[in-house]
């Protein structure tokens, strides 16, 4: 899976938790989930759980804390998938 495909998949996972859908128009690596996409922090855990399920991986607390930007999430996912 290349990076574009990963971003597309991640966007689909994140989409239900973003109230203002227009914010999803220009998602890139730098996009901050809480600040840019206005995702409620309570839903970060829901996103992590959905990511775990979609990619069949497990994300520990330390990694979860690092999932601030799209790039960071992608790195964690790719690292796990290679492993």
């Amino acid at each position, binding site marked *: 899976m290349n990076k574009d495909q990963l971003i597309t998949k991640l966007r689909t996972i994140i989409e*239900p938790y973003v*109230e203002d859908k227009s914010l999803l128009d220009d998602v890139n690596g730098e996009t901050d989930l809480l600040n840019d996409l206005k995702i409620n922090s*309570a*839903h970060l*855990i*829901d996103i992590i*759980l959905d990511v*775990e399920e979609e990619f069949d991986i497990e994300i520990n607390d330390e990694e979860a804390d690092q999932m601030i930007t799209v790039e960071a999430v992608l790195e964690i996912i790719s690292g796990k998938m290679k492993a």
Partner: protein
Amino acid sequence: MQENRVVVTGLGVIAPNGLGVNAFTQSLQKGQSGIRFIEELAEKKFACQIGGIPPLDETYQDLYLTTFQKNLLVSSSVLYGVLASMEAWKDAGLEVIEKENTDPDWETGCIFGTGLVDGEIIKRTMTMVDNLQVRRLGSTSVTQGMTSAVSAFLGGILGLGNQVTTNASACSTGNEAIMMAYYHIKNGLASRMIAGSSESPGPYIWGGFDSMRLLNRSSNDQPETGSAPMSAHAKGFVPGSGAGALVLESLESAQARGAKIYTEILGGFINSGGQRGGGSMTAPNLEGIRRCIQSAIKISNISPGDIDLINGHLTSTMADPFEIKSWSEALGRKNDNFPYIQATKSLIGHCLSAAGSIESVATVLQLHHGFIHPSLNLDEIHPEILSIVSPERIPQQKIDPASISIAAKSSFGFGDVNCCTIFRRWEP
């Protein structure tokens, strides 16, 4: 501090016989029952296999909720409550203001009650925890499982900055929410309050009542005849579900913005019979009921003779004659002189904690439009009731009396708790 007069400026409802105020009004006028056979209750070996479930579909939800909001509302009672409240808000002519760069609405709050949390939410939580999957629970079990879920959700959508809370007093909950919101505004603590209550349907909510033999077990083949308050053949209540919501507002605030006014709330009272004098966890102390009614009348500055219509608690159980007797004693009125009395539960069943708010919406609508909806399934009125009230005071067809001005709405709940609210038709 000057006390505010309090008026009702918005209504919303999710009922077994109608989604939204328009459909509900039509069902009230036609005497349309919302009670159906429920397959799931039969499968789960319930003695009572009938009930009232709002026929909610996606199209209706889309009137009031975005896809984002719908995805978050997985509890049926929370969904019902939010839908009814959003309808009431818009019905009151109020806007939903964008979140960004706006201040909270410090003058508006919400008291939205519930009884039991949606069993499906608790079941999911318990199953996952017991299967050692606690880390996969996510946010839903809290945001949809907390009893204050409706008011919390509304607070976010509407930016409510006054008191945002929930209340619980079993089957008196909805009426109590209205009374609490009324006093909050009357005492000058807020200009506007959303008040209401909701209850989920289904086997997990209704099972305990089935086991207690409080539900009707003999109408499974004729669901619409099952809820028969005041009947000689009342055989237990039929469980219902749904939500009712009212926007209460100070008269000053309503007039300042030129709002439509349905009714004024003249006053009301909340008390308990103390589970003494015949009262218990499940039965009312009749002295408590009489005091509740009399205090509501006194506080409202009216006399017992002023009440034109009683929307009773009247559940279709053996307790109905006792309620009528209490009303008669509290008002000092009998036979032809008894007010009109009706049971909305004959149409929708007993919606438990949602009953008080849905039936209050029905009461306000009837005062506003000037009709009295029929009470169903009264082929034979209970003889003890007939010895107190003339049959023509219990309309079985819709009537449009020349003048109904003042209505009393009573609700009673487990724990021997009582609530009575007095509404007056708005005459500008």
